[in-house]
């Protein structure tokens, strides 16, 4: 049982980290603006999965105190990471929406989505 849990842990944390790495790779190396936005949002999802995994508890119950349930305190899942993830998902959605609208603006202005052809501003 213990071993099974360990494997599960590794799988969840590993896939979260993997998602983050995929997202970071996509955001940093791809030339297409749409792919960069996709990369950013995959990176976001990876972090969200990590946050959920931190609050996860095997056989946990919902964190609600109700009559007859007072003794289940130590098997309740931690509600805070879930609340945080909800907020983070909404924020991530907003950022993605703004990013896509900027991509549309860039496409109209430059007639291309390739980031190496859009470089009027430089350091």
């Amino acid at each position, binding site marked *: 049982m213990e071993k099974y849990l360990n494997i599960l842990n590794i799988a969840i944390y590993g896939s979260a980290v993997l998602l983050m790495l995929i997202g970071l790779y996509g*955001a940093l190396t791809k030339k297409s603006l749409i792919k960069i936005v996709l990369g*950013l949002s995959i990176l*976001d999802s990876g972090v969200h999965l990590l946050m959920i995994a931190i609050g996860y508890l095997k056989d946990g119950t919902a964190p609600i105190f109700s009559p007859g349930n007072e003794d289940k305190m130590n098997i309740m899942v931690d509600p805070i990471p879930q609340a945080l993830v909800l907020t983070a998902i909404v924020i991530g959605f907003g*950022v993605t929406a703004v990013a896509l609208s*900027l991509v549309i603006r*860039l496409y109209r202005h430059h007639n291309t989505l390739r980031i190496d052809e859009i470089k009027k*501003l430089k350091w």
Partner: protein
Amino acid sequence: MVGSPVLFVAIPLLAAFIIPLTGMMWKNSVRVIPGLVLAFMFFLSISLMGYVNEHGTIVEVLAGWKPPIGINLVFSPFTGFLTTLMTFLGFIVWLYSYKFKRNVDFEPSMKYFMLLMLLVTGSVGIVLTGDIFNMFVFIEIVSISGYGLTSFYTRRDSAEAAFKFLFMGAIASTFLLIAIMIIYSQLGTLNIADIAEKMPMMDHKLKVLSLVFFILAIGVEAEIFPLNGWAPDVYTEAPGPIGAAFAGIVVKAAIYASVRLVYTMYDFSGAFDLFIIIGLITFIMAETTALRQDRLKRMLAYSSIGQMGLVMIAFGIGTKEGVYAALFLMFNHAIIKSLLFFSGSYLVFNKKNKYIKHVNGMGKYLPITSVLFTIGAFAIIGLPPFAGFWSKLAILTAAADNKMVVLIAVILIISILEAVYYLRVVNRIYFYDKKEKTEPKKPSLNALVAMISLGVIVLVIGFYPDLISGILDRAAADLLDKGNYIKDVLTLNK
């Protein structure tokens, strides 16, 4: 007490979403309401400062959950000082841009003022909040409204600048989330005071890792050297007053966040040396790059980054004198850089690429604006009768007290570069002949009032630095007194 600190977040947020509705009935309300709100916030924060000086820090508990469980707002001498500075600058930016886009149409100015209100909400929220996740939310509010304001003009290359900013901001926000999760998984709390108390229990490696993620994330907004690639583009492409808002409000909030982390949350002293090193690199890189800019706003942007490096150095010195100097410099930079952005945008108004050569001979055509720009330039270099002199002196004495001879030498050498590129512009304003035929734009009355009041502040602080040194002293003492902060927040039984 006149009001509670929660109004600093609630009122501008409400105003931002109510002006589209009132705008349908009375179009001018789009411009009037933000001004009233900002003036009220400034008034409120001044009166709360008076209360704090007599009765001590105000800790506001939201929704009845006491810390460490609930979210709390902390209005201490330090955060109060920054709040006052930000709301004042917000008001000045509003005054300057009151007639913004007046002759175009109703829509743009509505979006402009909505986003400006959100920007102020987020920045003040970052400073007041006592909870790191709440801080993350406010940082996102600032960033998203910042992206909107940057891409405001559709005709310029503003979308490119905004996308750069967004790319860095989005990655920074994920890093911030990771840092927050590391802290939460180790200590089980999100409250800054509670974290500060439990910090010695945390595993050393994870502590360093989370600090690195924090600095990477907040460094983007704070314009720390390798992370500030967005800043010059954003300052160039955003509307003129927004440059002032970024330099005076947003960056100050981000600097606050990083200082709060290092001074209050984390307990290792090596972080101070890190501040000095990244501050020095930022300072040197930015000032040398500013020297070879040919566009006015880009030059001001690099100068702004350089000044932030100087603030980081001063915070890194770590003594009370150092913190005092840093706060003084933050105050001066907010006032002076806003003055430079305001007057600079009129000097190159309506010019295609806003090159420095466009200011040639403007001294004859725009006398008041030119004088104000000159005052700002002299003040930021640190010439004696102006405000900038005292802050630079304070940094040098703070460094001298700690025997940091190399630091003093570097600051002085780089200051010469700073003088070179500012005086070059002033020289062009007065001693070159105007070549172009286009008529320079005369500043409108409200913009003139905003610029003159900033200029007067620069001069008054220059002659009587004692006017604010008491406030700065209390703020510096408050920041350094970590135990008191924890006690104020956690032993709250009112």
